[in-house]
């Protein structure tokens, strides 16, 4: 704010000057108003005096004129001229002239006054006529000097009076002003004291001060009080602001984000240490530069320059966030992945005061994201696409096939005998095998527009893009041959692998990815069932595939029944052949009730359920319902064995689920046992072992079901902490007549007992079989001969 130029003259000077001017003006006006008429009156008076003098002289000489006493007339004229100091008096007839003069008086007033007044000699003249007869002419001239002198003296007195009045007025006004302005001077002193920082300074209230000054002082003091409190508040806020500012400074300097602050024109004012580190510019070095000079931004992929977001934010008056994939070109030329947010800084009234750009080093995060993105789509072991990625690509391919005449072929690949490697050489060997095999397959299809994915375990998926089925089959054939030639060596063992291919071509009739996968899987399943190392193209009309398809039809039926609660629990008793086994023992079975209410045996729907991943749901349903039954039927003290599918065994959360369910009820967990098939247990050996150990700790025992049907490795038997072996029914049926079966069952039984495990013979249907088993010493028998499956009591 520009300071107003102070007036040249003080208030006193102005007032005194004004009074001086007013008095002077009044003096002038008075001179004009009074003086001019006075001068005119004086001159009129002078003229009148001349007339009077003339009249007097006329009177004086009138008789003498009548008497024609001319000496007397002359004497009278002379006498009068001298006596009254007439400049001139003259009496003239036709025959004589009598006159007398006196010199003008020497005047003592200044000549300019005479010039100013323009004094004139007053003259009067008259004819002496008596009775109509003229006796001559008489004239007089009066000296104006005396009148002018009197006028001068009067003017002089008036001027002196005016001057005296002026001086008196000025002195009086000066005194009044001094007294009156003293309060203002005190106010000024107080104001300067406040200006100097003494906010306690106040204007002193003096008795006798003019009320205006007193009111002004009171107002000033009130204002000073207010200012004092404001200053105190400001200082308090200032100190708080300083603390806040210091806190902010420390915060800004210590935060991990880089902060760049500019003025409203986009010129840099400040860089925090992190910004200095990232840009390579020191804050002092960057100050005053435009942001684009310090922060050169480019697109990560194209290298194109990007408009600086802060300048954009300032021009748009809006927050601008930079797109991802932005690189900062540092002062030394190196680049850095960053993300940033640019915002204008507004004052309280909304005006832009500057801008702030917050950015951070995104290199690690972006690398991590890329890694995560890679991991989300890749198989960590082989580096191939994973199942989810393949499903996405299949979805995209299906969409393309449905909307464009393009060819896509999907191939389901399942390694044969891979489990043998795992079983004999361990998982490390299996992993190494997969990696090496992956390299071979990837190399085989390298450069092609194909996608190879590991769908899980030893299953792979291969998607051919824009490739017709015959060409795809050629590729598959070549791949199979390549894998067939491959020999995997691990330590001193050499393995030869076979591979089964299920091939299906995508077409517009496919409804979803699951259908494609199912078709390929079906074809592969069939190829595998043919002995492996085969290629099977999915054909809807192929009988074997039709059967598999039928299984798949069951999926929908089972799902609907499950949702409609049409599953029921059955139980089949296991009879203890030895005394002392304690109580009754049942195996829990599941049955499905058809839509017509008929009971459907599990042999019809369970294979499909297990194959298509529904078995865990059945398992959990059974667990919940059996546990609820046990809790609500305390009169039933029997022990129940529940079946667990291979999928449940492979699910690490199964143990937690069972324990949580147990914790919800109050029956003795030892009344519960689980049966797992030998095949399922071996396929999920590790998780199965952990599950058994976990539940054993709560008193829950396990039985190895269908023992003898699978590989029945003694190693497994040793490793799995099962309490009993359930001898597969194939060995039990007809053992009384089949010596081999009898021998095998005996061996199994003996082995189990040697290992401290109980034996259970299932599917006992004849007395002869029962007798043999009793003779053998089997612990439990189960079969239609002894007890048919039946529903749980209500």
């Amino acid at each position: 704010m520009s300071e107003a130029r102070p007036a040249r003259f003080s208030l006193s000077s102005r007032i005194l000057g004004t009074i001086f001017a007013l008095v002077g003006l009044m003096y002038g006006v008075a001179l004009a108003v009074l003086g001019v008429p006075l001068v005119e009156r004086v001159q009129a008076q002078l003229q009148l005096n001349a007339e009077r003098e003339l009249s007097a002289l006329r009177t004086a000489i009138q008789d003498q004129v009548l008497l024609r006493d001319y000496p007397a007339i002359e004497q009278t004229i002379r006498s009068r001229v001298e006596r009254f100091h007439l400049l001139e008096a003259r009496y003239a007839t036709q025959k004589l002239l009598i006159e007398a003069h006196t010199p003008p008086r020497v005047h003592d007033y200044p000549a300019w006054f005479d010039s100013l007044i323009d004094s004139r000699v007053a003259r009067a003249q008259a004819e002496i006529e008596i009775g109509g007869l003229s006796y001559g002419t008489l004239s007089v001239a009066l000296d104006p000097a005396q009148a002018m002198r009197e006028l001068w003296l009067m003017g002089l007195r008036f001027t002196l009076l005016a001057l005296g009045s002026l001086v008196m007025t000025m002195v009086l006004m000066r005194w009044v002003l001094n007294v009156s302005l003293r309060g203002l001077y005190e106010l000024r002193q107080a104001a300067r004291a406040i200006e100097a920082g003494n906010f306690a300074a106040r204007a002193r209230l003096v008795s006798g001060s003019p009320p205006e000054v007193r009111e002004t002082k009171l107002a000033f003091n009130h204002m000073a009080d207010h200012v004092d409190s404001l200053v105190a508040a400001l200082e308090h806020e200032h100190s708080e602001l300083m603390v806040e500012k210091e806190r902010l400074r420390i915060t800004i300097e210590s935060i991990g984000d880089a902060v760049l602050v500019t003025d409203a024109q986009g010129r840099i004012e400040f860089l925090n240490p992190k910004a200095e580190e990232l840009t390579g510019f020191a804050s002092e070095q960057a100050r005053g530069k435009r942001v684009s000079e310090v922060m050169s931004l480019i697109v990560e992929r194209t290298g194109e320059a990007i408009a600086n977001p802060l300048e954009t934010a300032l021009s748009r008056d809006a927050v601008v966030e930079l797109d991802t994939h932005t690189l900062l070109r540092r002062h030394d030329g190196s680049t850095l992945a960053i993300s940033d947010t640019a915002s204008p800084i507004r004052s309280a009234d909304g005006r832009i005061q500057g801008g702030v750009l917050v950015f951070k080093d995104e290199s690690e995060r972006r690398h991590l994201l890329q890694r995560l993105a890679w991991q989300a789509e890749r198989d960590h072991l082989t580096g191939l696409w994973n199942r989810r990625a393949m499903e996405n690509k299949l979805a995209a391919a299906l969409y393309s096939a449905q909307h464009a005449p393009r060819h896509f072929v999907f191939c389901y690949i399942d390694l044969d005998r891979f489990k043998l490697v795992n079983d004999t050489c361990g998982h490390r060997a299996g992993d190494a095998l997969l990696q090496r095999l992956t390299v071979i397959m990837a190399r085989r299809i390298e450069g092609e527009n194909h996608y190879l994915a590991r769908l899980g375990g030893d299953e792979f998926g291969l998607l051919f893009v824009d490739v017709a089925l015959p060409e795809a089959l050629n590729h598959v054939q070549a791949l199979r041959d390549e894998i067939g030639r491959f020999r995997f060596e691990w330590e001193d063992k050499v393995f030869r692998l076979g591979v089964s291919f299920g091939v299906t071509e995508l077409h517009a009739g496919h409804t979803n990815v699951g259908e494609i996968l199912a078709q390929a899987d079906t074809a592969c399943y069939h190829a595998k069932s043919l002995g492996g190392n085969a290629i099977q193209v999915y054909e809807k009309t192929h009988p074997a595939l039709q059967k598999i398809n039928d299984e798949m039809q069951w999926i929908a039926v089972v799902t609907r029944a499950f949702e409609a609660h049409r599953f029921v629990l059955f139980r089949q008793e296991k009879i203890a052949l030895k005394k002392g086994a304690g109580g009754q023992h049942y195996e829990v079975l599941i049955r499905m009730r058809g839509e017509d209410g008929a009971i459907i045996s599990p042999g019809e729907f369970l294979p499909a359920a297990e194959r298509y991943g529904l078995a865990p749901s059945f398992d959990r349903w059974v667990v919940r319902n059996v546990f609820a039954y046990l809790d609500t039927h305390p009169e039933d003290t029997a022990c129940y064995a529940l079946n667990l599918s291979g999928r449940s065994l492979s699910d690490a959360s199964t143990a937690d689920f069972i324990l949580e369910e147990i914790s919800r009820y109050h029956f003795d967990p030892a009344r519960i046992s689980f049966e797992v098939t030998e095949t399922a247990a071996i396929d999920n050996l590790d998780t199965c072992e952990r599950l058994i150990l976990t539940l054993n700790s709560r008193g829950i025992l396990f039985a190895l079901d269908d023992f003898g049907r699978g590989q029945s490795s003694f190693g497994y038997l040793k490793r799995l902490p099962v309490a009993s072996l359930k001898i597969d029914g194939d060995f039990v049926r007809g053992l009384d007549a089949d010596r081999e079966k009898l021998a095998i069952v005996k061996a199994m039984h003996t082995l189990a007992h040697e290992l401290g495990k109980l034996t259970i013979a299932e599917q006992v249907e004849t007395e002869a079989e029962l007798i043999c088993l009793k003779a053998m010493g089997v612990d439990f028998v189960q079969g239609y001969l002894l007890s048919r499956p039946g529903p749980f009591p209500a």
Partner: protein
Amino acid sequence: METTLKSFIFVWALFASALSHAAAPYAFGVLNQRSLQATASYWNPILSYVSARSGVPLELHIGRTANETTDRIVAGKLDFAFTNHLFTPKRAALGWRVLARQDSRGIRGQIVVREDSPARSLQDLAGKTVAFPNPYAFVGYYVPYDALLRAGVKVVPLFAGNQEAAMGQLMAGQVAAAGVNHQLMADFALRNGLKYRVLSESEPYFDLAVMASPRVSQADSEKVRQAFAGMADDPEGRRVLDAAARTIG
């Protein structure tokens, strides 16, 4: 006064014009009965008229006092005179002849006092100061003083200079009584609102007359006389007379 002038007979009027010539004007003396100014104011218009009518130039000459005027007449300094001071035997020898006289019933001498004066008779004036116009005034001094002498009353005379001056003294209370021309006194009292009482009054005498010096030719005298005498009948003369009369009230 106006009526008295009607009686002027100007026996010389017809000669005036015939005898007139460019010679110096005749000095026409007027006995001081009033102040010089009043006298001049009264007589100048008349003399101008007469001069014009008669062809005889006349110029008014007055002495400072009646005595002085009479002295001038007696000394032969004047050619015409309006006076009654020449009817003494001594002055009659001077040869002055009367040309005309005012047509009046004569004038009377009176001794008058103010109306508020305690004097009721001449005896009451004994020892008092009495004002008179001048020692030569016939009806103003000779006749009243004769009356006082006859009454055996001695007064202190005070000569005021002319008739109206003596009346002025009386009016101002400066004197106890005044000797006056009854006609002039009546005019003065009327003009000034003065109320007075007459203690003594004489028998009537001839009024003042216009007289000519013996050195004035008969012709001129006649012209002058005729002019005076015909003045009342001449409209112009009448106007002049009226104007002259207004100057003295």
